[in-house]
């Protein structure tokens, strides 16, 4: 039972407690992302530059976690011999979102938007480093260096949350996890983008 609590806190916390903390984190992230124009448009996806109604910004983290919760619950019930609790699956998945909360701040920097604007429509062969202000390049690098470890951390928590909640061996968790992340990156983006943003 000796596990690294940073990457697997779920030996100590799960169920309603994890769900409550996770939901608070998701609400904060959604609220902040409204002002920073950041959006979590898919599992482990963070993008900037969207000015949508506040409820869309808040809905997105919930849609991502809800998808993972439903996916892992269904597959967990099919594959696990343990009596799994839905609240543990949803609770651990909500808690796994927490590392992404600080990433909601990234949109406050306009460097990403400026870089994107400059890159739009430019021939990739014609891109030169001196086209971009040094400040923007440095800021984007800092954002990348911060958000990538946070995203990886969240991804590890998603994995361990499912494994602990469903009591499955790695060989069963890995394919379910990969498929879940892959579909989860696309489906919430498609559903919200298609039905609520158009």
């Amino acid at each position, binding site marked *: *039972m000796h596990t690294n609590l940073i990457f697997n806190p*779920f*030996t*100590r916390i*799960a169920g309603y407690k994890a769900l409550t903390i996770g939901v608070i984190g998701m609400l904060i992230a959604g609220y902040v992302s409204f002002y920073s124009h950041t959006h979590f448009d898919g599992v482990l996806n963070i993008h900037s530059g969207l000015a949508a109604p506040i409820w869309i910004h808040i809905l997105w983290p919930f849609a991502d976690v809800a998808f993972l919760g439903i996916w892992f619950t269904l597959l967990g019930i099919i594959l696990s011999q343990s009596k*799994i609790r839905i609240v*543990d699956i949803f609770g651990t998945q909500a808690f796994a979102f927490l590392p992404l909360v600080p990433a909601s701040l990234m949109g406050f920097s306009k460097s990403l938007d400026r870089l994107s604007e400059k890159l739009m429509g430019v021939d990739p062969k014609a891109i030169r480093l001196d086209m971009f202000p040094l400040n923007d390049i440095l800021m984007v690098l800092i954002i990348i260096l911060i958000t990538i470890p946070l995203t990886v951390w969240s991804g590890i928590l998603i994995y361990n949350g499912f494994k*602990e909640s469903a*009591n499955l061996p790695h060989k069963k968790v890995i394919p379910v996890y990969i498929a879940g992340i892959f579909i989860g990156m696309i489906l919430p983006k498609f559903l919200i983008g298609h039905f609520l943003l158009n």
Partner: protein
Amino acid sequence: MKLPILCPSCQSKLTVKTLNCEKCLTKVDGNFKMPLLAAIPEDAQQFIIEFVKNSGSLKEMAKTMSLSYPTVRNRLDEIINTLKTIENAH
């Protein structure tokens, strides 16, 4: 000291031949079968004792052990599987 449960030579289940009173040194000889619980590791035996003391409530177990509910349930499932494996093997 870990209680040996299998014969090191043929891997058959061991039985208890002699029981000893530490106070008056009386010895009882026989051929006693070891209980199934003796065949599992000591930490698993301790878990079962705690489980019974908590009236079989995994929620209470999780509280007293400062662990999450699924972690305690997973440990119980692991012990159940171990017991089943021992039962089926012999």
